């Protein structure tokens, strides 16, 4: 019988899996605690950093991490022990790796997904005033978090489920 995730949509799209994954990655790799918040979006910085890791296999879609440049530099500083004054290649590398670990941790919460869903190499985008739009996804999780006063958002987009 062919493997399918169709009967496990509730498990795959369980929002708690994303929260647990974010807490785990930030606690283990940065040594900080994250809290999810759900109030209105704060006025963001004009420059933002976005990392995308694609999913392929039983589930297709992407894990998208997005933050302002100051939060991105703060995350990279925690990872490396260095200080940053601009979003340089090391900051982009660190944010890409955070997104990679979030994607891996998230899919690892569902055993069928862990074994049958591959991850792409992270892509990192920097710029101002851009939006991410996906046409009619199967499901989408969009959560915002804070640590040490710095905010970021993580989106899981599923545009195909076998």
């Amino acid at each position, binding site marked *: 019988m062919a493997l399918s995730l169709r009967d496990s949509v509730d498990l795959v799209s369980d929002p708690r899996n994303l929260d647990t994954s974010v807490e785990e990655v930030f606690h283990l790799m940065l040594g900080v605690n994250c809290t999810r918040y759900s109030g209105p979006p704060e006025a963001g910085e004009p420059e933002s950093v976005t990392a995308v890791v694609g999913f392929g296999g039983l589930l297709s879609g992407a894990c998208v991490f997005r933050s302002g440049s100051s939060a991105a530099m703060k995350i990279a500083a925690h990872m490396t022990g260095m200080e940053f004054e601009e979003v340089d290649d090391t900051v982009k590398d660190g944010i890409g790796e955070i997104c990679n*670990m979030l994607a891996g941790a998230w899919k690892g919460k569902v055993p069928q997904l862990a074994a049958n869903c591959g991850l792409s190499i992270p892509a990192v985008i920097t710029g101002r005033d851009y939006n991410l739009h996906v046409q009619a996804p199967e499901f989408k999780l969009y959560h915002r978090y804070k640590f040490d006063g710095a905010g970021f958002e993580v989106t899981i987009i599923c545009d195909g489920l076998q």
Partner: protein
Amino acid sequence: MSEVRTLIVDDSSVMRKIVERSLRQAGLDSLVVFEAGSGIDGLEVLKAEHVDLILSDINMPSMDGLEFLRQIRALNLAAGVPVVMITTESSEEHVKQAILAGAQGYIRKPFTPEQVKERVLPLLRTV
């Protein structure tokens, strides 16, 4: 412990630094680190340098970690040197593939320095 010559293969320079820091925190003060950003670069290091330990990511462009491992064995490089995979891929199938390709250890990202210590130090004692 005497000098431990270690090859760290990961396409992320930040992750290579984190792995190195974790090894030092595990007590490997006399670490000599060689870095490579892909499996292809890792093979070049192994052709030129003797190492005691290899830590490699799996998901990398150009040549992934599993192919890197197969090439090490096929080219008879680093014979007897323990290889530990450090990766976001955590399923039993991925662990099985890594072991079949010749890895002695497996660490899932994200990880703690304690996990690196637990998985790596016993392998060095057997060298």
